Structure formats: structure tokens, C-alpha cells
């Protein structure tokens, strides 16, 4: 379809801005714009049609089943959208005096309390904008804690070979060195490998538990012991927290620093890529280093505390992505203590799918899973030349969003499936039927899978071409207005 720029006609417009008939002061000529930006000139009706057509070409949880592993694509309750739009939240300036923002601060403080209880750790910062920024914040906290302890030489972070790519990338951005630890055949961290690698240069571990394989690390207590006995810290990547809320707490597992993904576990809609929220909880000893400002309670009043002399500083503007807090807080209050049921049904749904699919796809780790599991299409590839990518593309023709594929890296032809707790048994059964029919097709007509998808607005796209000759903005084929003026 056309770009909005291709629908533009000089002189058309949508919005009107008040002028108030005031004189515009003179601005020095060298600071003034020479040529107007080529923004689209389109009436409002056509803008609405354009974005309606784009919405029609997009697939969300509202459209259908979205078992994208590690992304926790659960239903996003609409009441959360209603409350985030209340003027008292929506139109509140972040530099309003604390006394004029008591409702917002109370909400943030209450959210911190719930998050602390869920993690089993006492102190929370809401500031990080996303999980990966939470990771970076956590690593900065480690550095500050070791500097304070007089151990600045601790410069190595250990991550699992199953880790999300954000973990090693955060390690680099925080200025640490990276060391990797292997995973056993059962999907746990290899304790012998770990013992050999942890020493007095080790700052800490970054771990997702359950792991990206959807498996709870059965040796987590020994893992914590290995790090703590050598004076190092444990960081919990909360990407998979949806598996264990009310069933096991990272703080009780031995983790010292934890991030949450509010856009996963606590239902902030992900908006086609964001926003998210990545609060971080820590043990009491690490609290002094948390970013400033923090939200504190004095009796019945709440305030932003900027006076934090040991703080690592600010990691984001203002006090965090407040609208995300409103939605996640509303989500938590809709469940109350039954947040535990949320994780239980998430785990039930995943195990149900696993049980129904294990005979038609390879199962690299034959255990009960937590909230997600990883299958492999390697036999299918060997026997029929059909890959995980082909399975994913064919699922689209069943109006199902594909699972995460080719991750984690330790599994060949990986299909990482996370149904979440908000899907009914009927939806899960539809997915099972689709996956089984694709497995049958792989044997009978593999060429159909290779050609899939057949029912989407576009067929398979050439990603190599996109990267080789990057076209990352529209090339206007009409000269700019200033050029037109100069030419004629």
C-alpha cells in the first residue's frame, strides 16, 4: 500500500493551530528553517483511512493467539486503558510539586510495595524504562556496591549460554567483562563449570529462572551459594517471572537484584515494540545505591527523594514511565493475592500444550515445563527439509502468531512457545490442531510450507536485501519546496 507521503498533495491539511492574532517576534535569520520539512499534506479523513489500513495489516493479542515465547503476550485489560486516561494521571506534569502529585506518588509507592512482596526483596526503584535498562541499572548497582565495599577489581559477569541477548549486551554497556557458563542436559546451570569460573574477580551472575528453556533451575540454591560464598552477587532477569508469582520468589532463591518486565508479567500492552517498564528490586544492603529520585512515604504523605548521596544517579527522565505504572498497578489490584493463580494457569497451559505436541516435534529437554517450553523442528528439517522458520510462516495462515524461533541458541531449529494464562482450552486446542496439521503437511507437501504464508498482506520478505542496501526512509521523488522555488 502507499506511504502516507505518497498520498500528500501540496496545500491540503488536517489540523489547525490557534494563532490568537499575536505578533511573532523576530528570530535571527541564521536560526530559521530554510525549507519546510516534507511532512505529509493530507486531510484528516485520509489520515484516518491510512492508519486504519495499517491497523488492518497488523496482528495483536486482540486479533488472535500470540504464543511468542519469552514475551508473555497475555490479554491487556481495557479497564487499564480507561484509568490511564484519567486527567489526573494523563495531564499531570512530572515537575509538579510533590504536594500536587500525592495520588500519583501514592500509586507508585503502593506499586513498589507489591513488587517488593512478589520478589521477596525490600527496596524497589521504578525508574528503568524497560527490562534491558533494568539489567543495565542492576549492573551499575553491582559496580557501586563493590566500589563502596572497596572491591573495585570485581569486573566479570557470568551469564548462561541460554541467556537473552540483552544480558551480554548489558554487560558490555556497563563496562564489565563477560564469562559464559554452560547448561547441563537437564537444562540446569552446570555447577562444576560454575565453580571453576567464580573467583574474586567475579562481580556476579545474570540469570533468568525459569530459564529461556522454560525450565526452573533445580540447583538454584547451590548456584547462589557458589556466588555468595565468594562475595559475588546474583542478578535475576525477570523476563520469565510470569511462571512463579506467588510460588517462588527471586529473593528467596538467593538473588540480590531483580528486574521485572511490567509489559510482560503485569500486562502493560507492548504497543508494537514498546513502551515497557523495568523496575528493579534489591536487598537492603544495595538500597543506598538505587537511582534518584526514589518514591518514599513520610507518614501519610509521599514524596520524591532526591537526596541520595550513594545513588548511581538517574537512569531515565523523571520518576519512570508513569502510565505503565498505572496500568500494571490496576492489573495487580484486579487479582489481589490471586496473582498466584495467574502463574499457576500460565504453567498449566504451557504443560498442556507440551503434552499435546511432544509426539510430533522434537523435545530437547524432556521435563515438565514452567510457563513456556522449547520444541525443535530438527527432525522435520532432516527428514523433509522443513525448518522452524517454515513452521512459523505456515502458522500465520492459521491466523496464529508464530512462537519465538531460533532462540535459545542452544537448541537447533528452536520453537519457543508461551501461551500465557489468559487463553482458554479451546484456543490452546486450535493451536495444537494447527501445529499437528503443519507437522503432517511437512511430510506430505513440504513445498506449501516453504511458500507460506499465503494469506497475509505480503508474502515472505527479502530480509537480506533490506540489510544489504538499506532504505530506511522514504526517498521523495518530488523536489523539496525550496528546490521548487529555486528552480522556478
Amino acid at each position, binding site marked *: 500500500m502507499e506511504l502516507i507521503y505518497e498520498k500528500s498533495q501540496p496545500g491540503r491539511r488536517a489540523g489547525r493551530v490557534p494563532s490568537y492574532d*499575536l505578533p511573532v517576534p523576530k528570530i535571527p535569520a541564521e536560526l530559521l528553517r530554510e525549507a519546510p520539512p516534507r511532512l*505529509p499534506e493530507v486531510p484528516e479523513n485520509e489520515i484516518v483511512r491510512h492508519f486504519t489500513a495499517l491497523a488492518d495489516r497488523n496482528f495483536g493479542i486482540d486479533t488472535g493467539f500470540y504464543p511468542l515465547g519469552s514475551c508473555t503476550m497475555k490479554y491487556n485489560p481495557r479497564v487499564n486503558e480507561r484509568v490511564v486516561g484519567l486527567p489526573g494521571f494523563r495531564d499531570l506534569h512530572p515537575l509538579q510539586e510533590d504536594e500536587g502529585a500525592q495520588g500519583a506518588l501514592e500509586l507508585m509507592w503502593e506499586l513498589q510495595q507489591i513488587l517488593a512482596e512478589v520478589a521477596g526483596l525490600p527496596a524497589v526503584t521504578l525508574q528503568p524504562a524497560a527490562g534491558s535498562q533494568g539489567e543495565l541499572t542492576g549492573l551499575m548497582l553491582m559496580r557501586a556496591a563493590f566500589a563502596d565495599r572497596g572491591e573495585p577489581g570485581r569486573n566479570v559477569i557470568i551469564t548462561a549460554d541460554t541467556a537473552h541477548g540483552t544480558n551480554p549486551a548489558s554487560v558490555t554497556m556497563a563496562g564489565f567483562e563477560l564469562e559464559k557458563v554452560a547448561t547441563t542436559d537437564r537444562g540446569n546451570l552446570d555447577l562444576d563449570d560454575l565453580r571453576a569460573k567464580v573467583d574474586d574477580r567475579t562481580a556476579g551472575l545474570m540469570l533468568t529462572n525459569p530459564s529461556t528453556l522454560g525450565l526452573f533451575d533445580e540447583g538454584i540454591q547451590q548456584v547462589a551459594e557458589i556466588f555468595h560464598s565468594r562475595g559475588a552477587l546474583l542478578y535475576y532477569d525477570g523476563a520469565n517471572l510470569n511462571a512463579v508469582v506467588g510460588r517462588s520468589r527471586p529473593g528467596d532463591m538467593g538473588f540480590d537484584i531483580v528486574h521485572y518486565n511490567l509489559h510482560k508479567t503485569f500486562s502493560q500492552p507492548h504497543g508494537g515494540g514498546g513502551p515497557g517498564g523495568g523496575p528493579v528490586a534489591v536487598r537492603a544492603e544495595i538500597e543506598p545505591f538505587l537511582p534518584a529520585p526514589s518514591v518514599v512515604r513520610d507518614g501519610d504523605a509521599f514524596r520524591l527523594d532526591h537526596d541520595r548521596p550513594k545513588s548511581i544517579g538517574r537512569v531515565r527522565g523523571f520518576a519512570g514511565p508513569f502510565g505503565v505504572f498505572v496500568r500494571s498497578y490496576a492489573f495487580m489490584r484486579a487479582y489481589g493475592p490471586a496473582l498466584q493463580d495467574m502463574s499457576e494457569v500460565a504453567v498449566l497451559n504451557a504443560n498442556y500444550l507440551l503434552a499435546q505436541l511432544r509426539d510430533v516435534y522434537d523435545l530437547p529437554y524432556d521435563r515438565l515445563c514452567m510457563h513456556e517450553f522449547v520444541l525443535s523442528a530438527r527432525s522435520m528439517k532432516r527428514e523433509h527439509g522443513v525448518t522452524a522458520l517454515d513452521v512459523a510462516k505456515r502458522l500465520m495462515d492459521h491466523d496464529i502468531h508464530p512462537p519465538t524461533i531460533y532462540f535459545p541458541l542452544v537448541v537447533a531449529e528452536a520453537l519457543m512457545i508461551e501461551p500465557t494464562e489468559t487463553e482458554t482450552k479451546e484456543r490452546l486446542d486450535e493451536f495444537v490442531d494447527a501445529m499437528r496439521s503443519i507437522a503432517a503437511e511437512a511430510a506430505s507437501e513440504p513445498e506449501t510450507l516453504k511458500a507460506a504464508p499465503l494469506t497475509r498482506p505480503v508474502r515472505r520478505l527479502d530480509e537480506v536485501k533490506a540489510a544489504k542496501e538499506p532504505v530506511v526512509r522514504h526517498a521523495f521523488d518530488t523536489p523539496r519546496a525550496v528546490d521548487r522555488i529555486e528552480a522556478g
Partner: protein
Amino acid sequence: MSTAGYLSLTDADLAAMLDAIGVDSIDDLFEQIPEGVRFGRALDVPEALPEAALVRHLEELAERNADTSRELSFLGMGIYDHYVPAIADTFLSRGEFLTAYTPYQPEMSQGVLQAIFEYQTAICELTGMDVSNASGYDGATVAADACFIARHHTGRTKVVLAETLNPQVRQVVKTYAPGFGMEVVEVPHDGGTTDPAALADAAHDAALVIFQQPNAFGCLEPAPELAAAAANAGALPVAHVDLASLGLLEAPGNYGCAMAIGEGQSIGNYQSYGGPHYGFLAARTEFIRRMPGRIVGETTDLEGKRGFVLTLQTREQHIRREKATSNMTTNQTLLALAGLITLCWLGPEGLRELGETCTALAAYAKERVGLPVAFERPHFKEIAFRTPIPARDVVARAREHGVHPGYPLGRDYPGLDDVLLVALTEKRTPADVDRLAEVLAEVTS
């Protein structure tokens, strides 16, 4: 059975599912958690609320905030009460956009991919750059991103920040810099703007120089001279700009900047107590392979039809891991979509008019408010006034009259305790400015 919250599991479902799995109970599924780390009690969190009670509870909290519908506000300093068009709300509530994940599977996500491509185009047009990412977290973290790019591009480790760069942006850069192995130097302002000669001295051996246009005091910097001073020292000139100004003010790419960054909130996002909003980062072509975050590119499908995909992914964490250009994955796509829709709604004329109206209102305030201006410099939509009593006290007293008169600069700038920064958007009227003038006269007399 569980029907708590948003669950809908019946007894029949549970029995059939446990049977299919081959276990007797949900507890059996959690046996893999070692006994020592199982949580043995109910969560101690507030009770569940049914929807109507939940709404009432949140309404009560919201009512205890002095938002801009309850108070006549002139607060700015990075976040502004500009008008958000109705059609931005319309599309942000469309579930196809709202409830989608990052577009890893392009055939399922052509809508958002094309929208991001259109957004990237708009940001490039406004800033005069060749490439924009799909958004950063906010106007502060994109400054840290620019430092990371410059560190690797130049091999230098010094960051130079104009003191007139928003204080929160500078604080975030200082938090990130040690991890990048960089040190930060700040150039003090001279009468409200940055002296190009002072900047040139500081820029010696620097990786980059970041200045803000219009700056944190609302003054217009001699931006072309600052960019030239940085470039002459071999440092990358980076402008932190307000999208709302770019219908009127020159694009940073047209006065020699290597990158343009900023907070997008003023175009299409509500104030929302500071977030979520979108940061933007645009650069010249030579930096394309060092950009952080998602970038959408154009391509074709196997029938030759145009389509869009996430591209240059070998920069990114999920491919390059510890060698990635950033750890970023989640960004602010939905907020950037609101920005794109708002820019389409304004068009080039509307964006220019927006800048003119804000500047004109600021000039009207300068004339009407009976206080001396703090800095005799050309301005955009913010004006700093000297107050005869501490500006904090002016704020407290004016609020008793239902007017929030602006931001006391002394909160961030020692020595400027008597300076009040007043922001004007097109939502304020000349009558509102008259009211501000009246209240300021009363509380400062």
C-alpha cells in the same frame, strides 16, 4: 477452577488438562522448584477489586493530583502541555497496534513496520538527517546512546555537555558514562546561552559535544556556531532539539550536526507524569551501523511487492550479544506512532504555525509579566523571569491562586534561585497569560 482477575479456567478444563499432562494437581507442576525456595504462603498484597471498584479507587488517586485541567499551568522544562489530536487517541486504542509485540515476524506486522518507516522518514525530515531509529526510551537516554556511538566512532572518551542542556539529560549521561569508559565535562552558560569560544576550548579531544536548541532556559543558542566549534575540534556535534520547534527553526543536519536527538513528548504525547514518551535519535548515514535499537527498512516480498522489515539486525543484542551497539530491545513504538500521527495531522504548515503561536505567546508573556527577564536572548516557547523573592516561593504562593507559574531554575542551577521558567504552549491563551501576569504581580509585590 480459577476465575480470579482475567482467568477463566473451569473445573472441566482443569481436569481434562491435568489428565492430558499426566499429573494429579497443579502442585505437581511446581515440583521442579526445589522445596527450599517454594513460597509457602499467600502473597501479602492488597485485596482484589472488581472492575467498578477498581475504577473508583484509581479515580480517587487521580483526583489527588493537580493536573493541567485543574490548575492553569506554565510548567515546561522538557515536558509540555501541547494539544494531542483526537486521532492520536483513536489509533493508540486500536488493539492491532496496542497489543502487538515487536515486529519480529514481518508478514504479521506490516502495519506497524510501515508506520515506523514513516516515523523514521518524518524524524529525518525534521532533523535534516539520513537515518532515525524506531525510537529510544526518552530524551535523556538517547543522549547516552549518542555518547556510545561517538565513543566508538571517534575512539575518544571525553563528553562535552553545555550546561544549558536539560539537567535530567545531563544527569543520565553522567550515570552511563563510566560504563562506557567516558568522562563528562560541562561548559557553563554565559548570559543564558553557550559561548562558542568556551565550547571550542572544551571540545578539544572530545568524542562529542551535546547542546540543546532551544536550550533549557528557553533561549535560542547560536547553534550553527556551536556545531562548527565542535566539528573544528574533531568532536561530533550533537543537537538536542524539540520537535515542536522544527517547523520554525533550522534542522540540525543543515548546520553541520552529526546527530540530532531529543524528547518527542511535545509532539503527540500527554504529560503523563513523565512517561511513557519517546526519545528520538537521528544521524548522518555514516553512523547507520552504530545506531542503537530497532530500524525498519524497505524491501520486497517474493512476488516483488513492497514490504517492510526490521533491518540491520546484526547491530542488535539478539544477534550480536556482547558485541551489539546497544542492549536495547523494548523501545517506545506506540508513543512514536502517536508522534507520527500528530505530525501528519499538523503537516508542514501546522508545525510552523505551532512554533509561531508558542513563540508569540512567550513574547506576549514577556511583555505582560511585570518582572525582568533573566536572559536577554531570542527565545522560543519558554521565558525565564527574575523574581524578587525565591522562585520556589513564587510557585508556592501562585499555586494558592490556582496558577502554576513555572519551574524554579534554582532546583537545578545554583545561583539561579530567583529565576522562574515559564512555558507557553498553544493551549494557553492571551487571557491565560494575563491571569499569570496578574497572579505573579500579586504574589511578588
